């Protein structure tokens, strides 16, 4: 099974290596804009309880960027399934179906982490202060895994490219803004906050912010992310198996 996971990952690694420079450069644009606009510009006039807004913002940007990159990196599987039909090559191969899901998710996690590394580098250049610990990395990896799995599931069940865009519009975009990325969820009405605190990105933002500022991080939130990761894996795997019905 490990060899099969490596094979699926190898395919994405070959493609990523070929496009590495383009990938890295394009991933710098959005975080740079966030850091300039919200960190330097708007951030100067925002009080977040003593610390700088930039320090508050960076974990949020890491959370939302790792979500977006992991999700969007796996979306081409949709074209492989619906348009190019190249997914058939994996379906008829003597490999364990879970190897395909895990290999694709890991390849997207790699992209999510590379992109996060760029943000960490830029944030340091912008003067942000935060601590990166093993738990911080674990949370980041879990966030990438969850959204890569959600992307994989969407790529397996959605029929058209337009509908894929709707997942972005109705799920990722609201989460990007509401899940404690740019402001604390404490500012929201209770009912909305209760709902938002069920979402994985809220836990990621909170954990990264807490650990990044030297705190221990709520292990309950880590557990929630792990449960999301397991559930989303089963969802994606089930959708992949159902392709053969």
């Amino acid at each position, binding site marked *: 099974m490990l060899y099969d996971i490596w*094979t699926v990952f190898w395919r994405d690694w070959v*493609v990523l290596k070929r496009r590495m420079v383009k990938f890295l450069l394009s991933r710098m644009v959005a975080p740079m804009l966030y850091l300039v606009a919200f960190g330097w510009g708007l951030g100067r006039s925002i009080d977040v309880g003593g610390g700088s807004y930039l320090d508050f913002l960076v974990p949020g940007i890491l959370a939302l960027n790792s979500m977006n990159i992991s999700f969007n990196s796996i979306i081409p599987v949709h074209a492989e399934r619906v348009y190019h039909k*190249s997914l058939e090559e994996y*379906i*008829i*191969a003597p490999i364990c179906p879970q190897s395909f899901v895990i290999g694709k998710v890991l390849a997207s996690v790699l992209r999510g982490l590379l992109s996060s590394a760029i943000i960490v580098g830029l944030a340091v250049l912008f003067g942000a202060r935060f601590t990166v610990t093993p738990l911080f990395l674990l949370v980041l990896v879990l966030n990438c895994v969850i959204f890569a799995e959600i992307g994989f599931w969407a790529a397996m069940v959605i029929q058209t490219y337009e509908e894929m865009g709707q997942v972005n519009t109705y799920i990722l975009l609201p989460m990007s803004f509401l899940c404690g990325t740019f402001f604390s969820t404490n500012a929201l009405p209770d009912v909305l906050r209760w709902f938002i605190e069920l979402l994985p990105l809220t836990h990621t933002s909170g954990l990264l912010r807490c650990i990044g500022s030297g705190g221990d991080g709520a292990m309950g939130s880590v557990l929630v992310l792990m449960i999301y990761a397991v559930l989303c894996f089963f969802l994606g795997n089930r959708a992949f198996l159902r392709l*053969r019905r």
Partner: protein
Amino acid sequence: MMQSPMIEINSLVKRFPHKDVENRDAWKTAVDGLSLSVREGEIFGLLGPNGAGKTTTIRMLTMQTAPTEGRVFYDGKELREHERDIKRLIGVVPQHVNFDQDLTVGENMELHARLHHMGKAERRARIGELLRYVELSEVVNDRVRQLSGGMKRRLLIVRALIHRPRILFLDEPTVALDPQVRRRIWDLVRRMATDGVTVFLTTHYIEEAEALCDRVAIMNKGKLIAVGQPLELCRQMGSYTVEWDAAGTREYRFFPHRNEAADFAAKLASEEKVLVRRTNLEDVFIELTGRKEGL
């Protein structure tokens, strides 16, 4: 000598959910109780008009879609119980070009070899050998989208052969290809069979089936309606055909012997364009599947 069946299909059924004319949930039967067997080393053709169920059959046999009912055995092993072992036995050439568009020719081949757990040295040697075999060595580093239609088809076939399958499935292998390329593909398929590979192909080109196949099965509306050697099927229909123009349509009659056909033709002296000839597989196909199919 009786050869053992390499593929044995028992009462295979595939139903798909669909919406009927009144938009209610219903089931469409694409393959309806198909039973047949394919011998080791033979080239077996599955013929049928569009929508007959050929591609669905191949998709079930290659585990791309699960049968609703029925069982399939490969070399005595039941498909569902030995799925991964059977996947190692088979190679699949799809009807459409399904290469990974982000990879080069060589990378597509390598992906297939890796998916079949071939070691580095073995896969390099095999990929080189197969690309030389179909004269595609020079495009090994090109993206697949840069290849011509004929090159893509040849590449699809050799990709399916990398792991040395004992059974090769070809779904409409020469669809939309020009006659020169079609003949080259036929030569390639014959060479596979000479090397001991069992070939199972679907086609709606009758001359392709006549040129290649040891035996053919004819499907229509999901059901098997005839199976046998092309010559045998022609003999069953009547080895000689008389055709003539009548009231704006072409009419056909079949006779077991040439003299009977000639006598009948002599009585049609007043009719236009009377022709006596040998019955071919196309006559059998059209008689069995109906003249209006595909219109």
